[in-house]
């Protein structure tokens, strides 16, 4: 069966096209583009991606308004049914605001917007999203965000670390994130939120291809499942 995915576009999303291109090139299959006001998702989705950007102008809090949009009710239901969901950058913020992932993304500790390639360590390579990496592998993926400072209370941090839900960690100081967490898995492993942009590292012209393995992992995981 052909791989079927959807990229959600909110008003103010700006990485939706890059995400769709990355999925098309690496995963293949059919990529649906879905508008935030749609209350229903296309049938038979294997994979949903929430892209980066500044949905609703980051009003109130980054991701807060998008989390209330009609399409997000459908995304939450799909995630609960076990559909694979990836949120990158603003998409990660939306997933925390929607309650699909723990914690919150706050203003970068250094106040400044950070836009550069960063080194990440693959903490857990047993997940649906990271099986194509080696455990402890260091990869390079760009970040571009103002609100990427991951916060959760100590009990929550201990729990997600204990459950192997830290997918990626920054290998350098980037934004003040608690325990340098860059990417977090949901409690059932089918949801991943991360601030770095894997869709911006999938071909040589991007300066590297370290993001490819994430999309390859998703396809392989779903085919073998």
């Amino acid at each position, binding site marked *: 069966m052909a791989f079927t995915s959807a990229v959600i576009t909110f008003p103010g999303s700006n990485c939706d096209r890059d995400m769709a291109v990355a999925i098309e090139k690496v995963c293949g299959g059919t990529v649906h583009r879905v508008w935030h006001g749609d209350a229903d998702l296309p049938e038979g989705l294997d994979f949903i991606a929430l892209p980066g950007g500044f949905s609703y102008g980051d009003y*109130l*809090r980054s991701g*807060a308004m998008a989390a*209330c949009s009609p399409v997000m009710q459908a995304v939450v239901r799909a995630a609960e049914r076990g559909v694979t969901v990836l949120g990158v950058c603003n998409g990660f913020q939306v997933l*925390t*605001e929607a309650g699909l992932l*723990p*914690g*919150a993304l*706050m*203003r*970068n*500790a*250094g*106040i400044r917007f950070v836009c550069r390639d960063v080194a990440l360590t693959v903490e857990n390579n047993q997940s649906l999203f990271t099986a194509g990496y080696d455990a402890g592998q260091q990869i390079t993926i760009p970040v571009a965000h103002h609100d990427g*400072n991951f*916060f*959760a*209370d100590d009990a929550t941090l201990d729990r997600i670390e204990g459950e192997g839900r830290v997918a990626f960690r920054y290998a350098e100081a980037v934004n*003040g994130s608690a325990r340098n967490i860059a990417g977090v898995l949901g409690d059932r492993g089918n949801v991943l939120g991360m601030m770095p942009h894997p869709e911006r590292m999938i071909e040589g012209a991007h300066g590297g291809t370290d993001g490819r393995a994430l999309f390859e992992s998703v396809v392989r995981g779903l085919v073998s499942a």
Partner: protein
Amino acid sequence: MKVRVLVTLKNGVLDPQGRAIHHALEGLGFDGVNDVRAGRVIELDVADSTSDEALDDMCRKLLANMVIENYRIEKAA
């Protein structure tokens, strides 16, 4: 009914904006500022019949992020 919602960061949550404001105040020569915490004020005009429970619900579901923020509701007399 006018309602004012004050949203503030929880104690112990680092506030980079507050810290930057603090730094700027010192730069302007204001001494003796011990700490600065930045928050948000949201003013609502709601039906008089709006219950306290409904206001709480609004704060918990949208106006504040309970992971990092507290809120206080003030009703205009």
